[in-house]
């Protein structure tokens, strides 16, 4: 269980976190979604008692992260964004070292890391610095889990990891969640957001929205259209002139157009484009993804700012 109340962090004049409040339930897989520099790492480091907040309070399983930091460290596992195990120690030596400093053994909690560790066990005599990105992350997760933490905090664990390893990694997180471990994970990848129980969208140190991914996607307040065109750049330039426009962004091979709710139909958009000399264009109504939600919220946030 993680309770964050009005956490504020300032580095000189720069405000990294502005009155952030969150409440994460026991056994929940909670995602912190936001671009680089949004404040994800600062928040996690405050929770891990590596950084002192400028204001506000935070508690992990009812232990204050400032006052009871020693106890907090015993019940949490942390995986920093940067690989931070000893590159000159072997896989096994790293795991053994972290088990020992937490006063436990690999054998005692082997059941927790078994699924993950088995995949890297064939390389256990290899130095950690020589592992591939995906294997490094698996080792780091094993080391973060070896003392059987109640809460797991993972800072961008899948950044720089290949697609297959990413998928495997999220499956592991699901299994850990099912064992009752509370997990807070941050990611810049919007597609990973749907794998979480609940997510918080964070931008410039402020939380813009907290909900389940489904609610967030379903409650998209405007109309969203996917537009396929051969000359995507031209089309987007023209669409910038359409009435009741909110935004137009490229989305893979197509464009995502957001217009004020109820102002357009696919026909009216098609008509507008034909009128401006664009042909061979398909317009379809689309369900919003987390990315669409994020972009819309960001735009509104910027307009009010």
């Amino acid at each position, binding site marked *: 269980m993680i309770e964050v109340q009005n956490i504020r962090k300032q580095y000189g004049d720069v405000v990294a976190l502005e009155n952030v409040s969150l409440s994460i339930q026991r056994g929940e897989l909670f995602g912190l979604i936001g671009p680089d520099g949004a404040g994800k790492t600062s928040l996690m480091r405050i929770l*891990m*008692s*590596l*950084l*002192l907040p400028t204001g506000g309070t935070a508690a992990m399983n009812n232990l204050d992260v400032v006052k009871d*930091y*020693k106890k907090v*460290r*015993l019940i*949490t596992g*942390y995986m*920093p964004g*940067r*690989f*931070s*195990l*000893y*590159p*000159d*120690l072997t896989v096994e*030596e790293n795991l053994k*070292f*972290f088990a*020992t*400093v*937490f*006063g436990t053994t690999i054998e005692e909690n082997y059941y927790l890391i078994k699924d993950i560790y088995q995949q890297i066990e064939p390389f256990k005599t290899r130095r950690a610095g020589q592992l591939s990105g995906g294997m490094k992350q698996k080792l780091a997760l094993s*080391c973060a889990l070896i003392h059987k933490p109640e809460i797991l905090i993972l800072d961008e664990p899948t950044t720089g990891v290949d697609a297959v390893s990413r998928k495997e990694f999220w499956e592991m997180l699901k299994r850990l969640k099912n064992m009752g471990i509370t997990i807070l994970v941050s990611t810049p990848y919007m597609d990973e957001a749907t794998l979480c129980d609940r997510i918080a969208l964070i931008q410039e140190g402020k939380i813009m929205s907290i909900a389940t991914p489904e609610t967030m996607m379903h409650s998209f307040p405007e109309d969203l259209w996917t537009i396929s065109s051969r000359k995507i750049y031209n089309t987007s330039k023209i669409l910038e002139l359409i009435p009741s426009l909110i935004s137009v962004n490229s989305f893979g091979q197509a464009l995502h157009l957001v217009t004020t709710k109820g102002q357009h139909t696919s026909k009216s958009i098609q008509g507008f484009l034909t009128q401006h000399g664009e042909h061979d264009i398909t317009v379809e109504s689309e369900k919003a993804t987390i990315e669409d939600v994020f972009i819309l919220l960001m735009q509104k946030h910027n307009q009010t700012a």
Partner: protein
Amino acid sequence: MRTLFYILQKEFTQIFRNKSMLPIIFVMPLVQMLILVFAATNELKQVDLALVDYDHSASSRNLIHEISGNPFFKVVTGLNNSQEAEDLLMRNKVNLALVIPKEFDKELTTLKRTEVQVLVDAINGNAAQLSLAYLSNVIGAYSQKVLIKPIKPEFRQAKTIEIKSTYWFNPELNYKFYMAPGILVVLITVVGMLLGGMNLVREKELGTIEQINVTPIKKWQFIAGKLLPFLIIGLFDLAFGLLLAKLAFNIPLRGSLLLLFSLAAVYLILVLSWGLFISTISDTQQQATFVSFFSLIVFILMSGLFTPVESMPQWAQNLDFINPLFYFVKIMRSVLLKGSNFIDIVNEFAALSAFAISMFSLAIFRYRKTS
């Protein structure tokens, strides 16, 4: 205790896995002892002297004979005027020039006093002073001879006080005996500061300190884990260096080795804490190296290792009050050459201990788990 044991085990594994570490531990003492001790000498074996004789008399020839007979001088003769001697000085061909004036013989016999001119190349002040002193001695001895000659031998006793000197603790004034203990101090200082200090910054650079900081490892355990391995390596290097000094130069080991190593341990704790302190205030190994290097140079040059502290200006001598190397160079020389016991060096020991304790506390205080 179990945690500390595993931290130490981890540190040693990492140290010996580091490919550059073993060469540093073994090659550095070899190079420092076998090359630096020879190189860092103030002894002058021979100087080149240009002679200009304007007099060409019996007296001037006798004086030249005295000088040429001295193996310390390599004499260049056959110069016509002092201008030629000055040219040789300018072109670094000679270090000294002696000009005997025209009336040398005449003045010596009639006036009983005369003058000669000596020109010294003072680019290297030390060498200049030494060679001038040598030459003055030779000329002085010669003048004694010629002046005393006419007087009856009985008066001679009353006129001069002859100095019979004995150099204690280093009777032959062997420069290596004096340098070797000092170079050993430099050796363990470098081991302690650079290896020990670098180690903590490396954890910062790699980011591993983040992971360590979220473990229940206590401050003192972490610091001890960084300190003890290099304390052991430093003491090992001291033993290795002493062995080399004994074998290569047969330097005397008069004092108690147990005392020497105990004091070295105190000194190493001080140096290691100092290195650790530097690494707590640096973010990269490069920064830490620069700061360590800077403080090392200042402390080494002021320590009295190469130049006597007594010849420094008073304010510099006062500064040495806080120079740990100053104390330890003194301890090393006293214990090894003089055979000093603990009581003899208790002041130096007290100073080192005080520094060690305060530096260690400072390093622990500065190393914070949370920022």
